[in-house]
């Protein structure tokens, strides 16, 4: 690598900062402020050590919950925050790292901006280095702000800073991963998708590590199993901020970042601008009959995303389902201190609870599939279809069918994956697992219907509003709403609040009401889409 390959990096950093000054500020401040508020909220909710112990025991002794939480060590409010909330923030920060890097690398190439800057006095690695520098600097600023958010709420400084840098380091690790994936594919979407897949897999690895770990009720400490050491999510958790403050684990992140960056630069020097490493192949000269209808086209455009999700969900279900049976065995002799205590020993309810916790996350697929459709219009690709004998209704219905059926198929795939547990434990009825999965469908479909409605009425706002509605339904829903002690009416905003819990008997009324609502939203969305002009 010659030094002049990095020529002009400084200018490109300034350009990126100028382009993204608002976007970066929103990301960084948004995350820090949200975290600050949540820390304050938990402080009010858990005033005494005993409160912390009770809640930590309730959540920490439940292995299914542990998949989605960090480890806990010792009794402190800060430690409890890292246990209960940090995974959500780690995922958001990982997204920040991925999206910022791809935006300033592959996206620039896709739009041709790279060609413009590359033709001036700029080295071939300058763009990639600038993207990494901007993202790393952003993550460091974020780390400091997170530390401040803890300190303002009265937490000890050493713990606050290790916590801040533990979370910020996740952004840096995923910046490195995205730098590599941006070299592999020739589209931003592909690079984001590949990095997102890596994120999902790494999260699962550390989740399984925590799940298979041990909870020591006397010391209030989770000792994670070895898989956590395979994932950056595990590394930041093992820093155990506010307890051991193992700041030296940050060195793992430094090494990981340098390694991935090195790989990215090597890949970058082996390819042409605008191309991926995986070369574009030639395709068929004639279309297959399956493509030649609006539905065929929609399926072709949607199928890659669908298949990836179908497989990912099945693998997650199978891995966690397989682990539940092992846990159920181990737990059968244990004391029951858990909120789910009355169901321990019943491995079926256990597996169902797992499906019920994973199910709502399929909303991410639904939203992605929906945005796939919205991007068709934004990219001017609705026009050629509607210039033929296809009505707007037929066009949107074709995509809607793919999104709706795809969602249900993904839920069924989750049930199927979790059925692995039935192989090991004959007490588990497979049908009950499918039931636990399908019962989530009405809530997801309400959000899908809402997405269509927004798309029909205000297409330019659809992506923002749909993501916002998704995040709100997750935050005020059963996963966080009760833990944040939100008023019931706020929790009721999330459709997932209305899904009967596994331990409750299934009541049809809320499910039917949600389906009706989904249908009304969908009908409104279709009608308004057919009445409006096309964008662009």
């Amino acid at each position, binding site marked *: 690598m010659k030094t002049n390959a990095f020529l002009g990096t400084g200018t490109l950093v300034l350009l990126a900062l100028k382009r993204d000054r608002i976007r970066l500020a929103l990301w960084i401040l948004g995350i820090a402020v949200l975290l600050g508020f949540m820390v304050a909220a938990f402080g009010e909710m858990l005033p005494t050590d005993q409160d912390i112990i009770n809640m930590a025991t309730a959540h920490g002794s439940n292995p299914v919950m542990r998949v989605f939480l960090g480890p806990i060590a010792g009794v402190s409010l800060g430690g409890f925050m890292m246990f209960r909330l940090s995974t959500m923030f780690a995922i958001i920060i990982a997204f920040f790292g991925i999206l910022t890097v791809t935006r300033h690398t592959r996206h620039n190439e896709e739009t041709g901006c790279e060609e413009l800057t590359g033709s001036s006095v700029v080295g071939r690695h300058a763009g990639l280095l600038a993207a990494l520098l901007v993202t790393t600097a952003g993550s460091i600023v974020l780390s400091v702000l997170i530390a401040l958010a803890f300190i303002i709420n009265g937490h000890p400084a050493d713990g606050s800073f290790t916590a801040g840098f533990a979370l910020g380091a996740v952004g840096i690790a995923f910046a490195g991963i995205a730098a590599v994936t941006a070299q592999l594919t*020739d*589209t931003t979407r592909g690079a984001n998708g590949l990095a997102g897949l890596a994120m999902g897999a790494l999260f699962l690895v550390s989740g399984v590590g925590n799940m298979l770990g041990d909870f020591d009720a006397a010391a209030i400490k989770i000792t994670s199993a070895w898989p956590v050491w395979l994932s950056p999510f595990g590394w930041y958790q093992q820093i155990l901020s506010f307890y051991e403050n193992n700041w030296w684990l940050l060195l793992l992140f430094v090494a990981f970042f340098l390694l991935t960056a090195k790989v990215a630069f090597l890949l970058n020097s082996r390819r042409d601008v605008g191309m991926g490493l995986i070369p*574009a*192949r*030639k*395709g*068929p*000269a*004639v*279309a297959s009959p399956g*493509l*030649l*209808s*609006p539905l065929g*086209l929609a399926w*072709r*455009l949607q199928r890659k995303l669908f298949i990836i999700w179908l497989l990912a969900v099945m693998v997650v279900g199978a891995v966690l389902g397989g682990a539940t049976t092992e846990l159920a065995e181990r737990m059968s002799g244990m004391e029951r201190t858990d909120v789910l205590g009355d169901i321990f020993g019943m491995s079926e309810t256990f597996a169902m609870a797992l499906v019920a916790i994973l199910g709502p996350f399929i909303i991410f697929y639904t939203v992605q599939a929906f945005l796939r459709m919205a991007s068709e219009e934004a*990219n*001017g*690709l609705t*026009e*050629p*279809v*509607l*210039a*033929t*004998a*296809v*009505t707007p209704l*037929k066009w949107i219905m074709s995509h809607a069918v793919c999104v709706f059926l795809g969602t249900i198929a993904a839920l069924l795939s989750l049930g199927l994956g979790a059925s692995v547990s039935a192989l090991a434990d004959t007490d588990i009825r497979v049908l009950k697992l499918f039931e636990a999965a399908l019962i989530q469908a009405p809530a997801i479909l309400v959000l899908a219907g809402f997405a269509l409605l927004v798309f029909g009425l205000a297409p330019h706002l659809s992506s923002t509003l749909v993501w916002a509605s998704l995040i709100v339904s997750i935050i005020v829903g059963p996963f966080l709403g009760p833990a944040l002690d939100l008023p019931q009416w706020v929790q009721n905003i999330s459709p997932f609040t209305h899904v009967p819990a596994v331990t409750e008997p299934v009541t049809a009324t809320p499910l039917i009401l949600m389906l009706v609502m989904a249908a009304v939203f969908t009908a409104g969305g279709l009608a308004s889409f057919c*009445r*409006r*002009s*096309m964008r*662009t």
Partner: protein
Amino acid sequence: MNIIEVKDLVKYYGKFQALDGVDMTVRKGEVLGFIGPNGAGKTTTIRILLGLLRKTSGQANIFGKDAWNKAAELHKSMAYVPGDVNLWPTLTGGEVIDLLNKLRGGINKEKRAEMLKRFELDPTKRCDTYSKGNRQKVAIVSAFASDAELFLMDEPTAGLDPLMEAVFQECVLELKALGKTVLLSSHTLSVVEKLCDQVSIIRQGKIVESGSLDELRHLTRASITLETVKPIMGLDNIEGVHDLSIEENRVRARFQVESDKLHSVLSFLFQFEFKSLVSRPPSLVELFMHHYAENSADTGEPEKEGAVR
């Protein structure tokens, strides 16, 4: 029979008025040249005719039916070539051609093969690897391979090389011979001049001139170059003479003359005894420039470039 009938068509984008009462008629078998500067409203008009945009008021009929309400039904016999061709990055050119024709009604395999050959397009390449010109060829081949009756083309040849441009012109002339109707928006005025029977000029959302090329020519000036035996005197005072330039010895002159003053001007010049005389009708470029330059100066309004797409 009127294939396209547009009356007093108005379109607002929010508060911006893109079309201000457009009138246009295209009869069966006609090739209409639709010209105007960027942002004048050509694409907006065409997109309304395609039923992709809702009009604010007025009438836009195709085959006697409303372009918005009956869009899908009408599109069975319409083919469209946009100026800015967007294609699905993961589909091949061949797949897109088949898809669009199938969605329109059916695939004509013979024509498809013929057009692929004439336009030298490789149908096995993925659309994201095509250049701009090749993407345009995909849309053009797809349109010419169809059995449509009406062809809407919005600056279809902007990215083509001169050879392909010639092939394109041949194809349009063949359509004309078959009695098909074509609306061709273009900036290449020589092409419009060659292909079109009728011309409509749009400016700031209004049709400012329309008619056959011959008719339009009468509205403007012819260029005259002449050589005389006797020195030419007093020509600059004659009505209808413009841009006069006379050489020093006053036996050679070039000027433009308003078409309806041609007779009186030539009668005056007769006394100087002609040695040679060349009269050239105004080219479309001159028509166009004349129209725009003058009208812009009149109103003093800046062109709203790129405001409408």
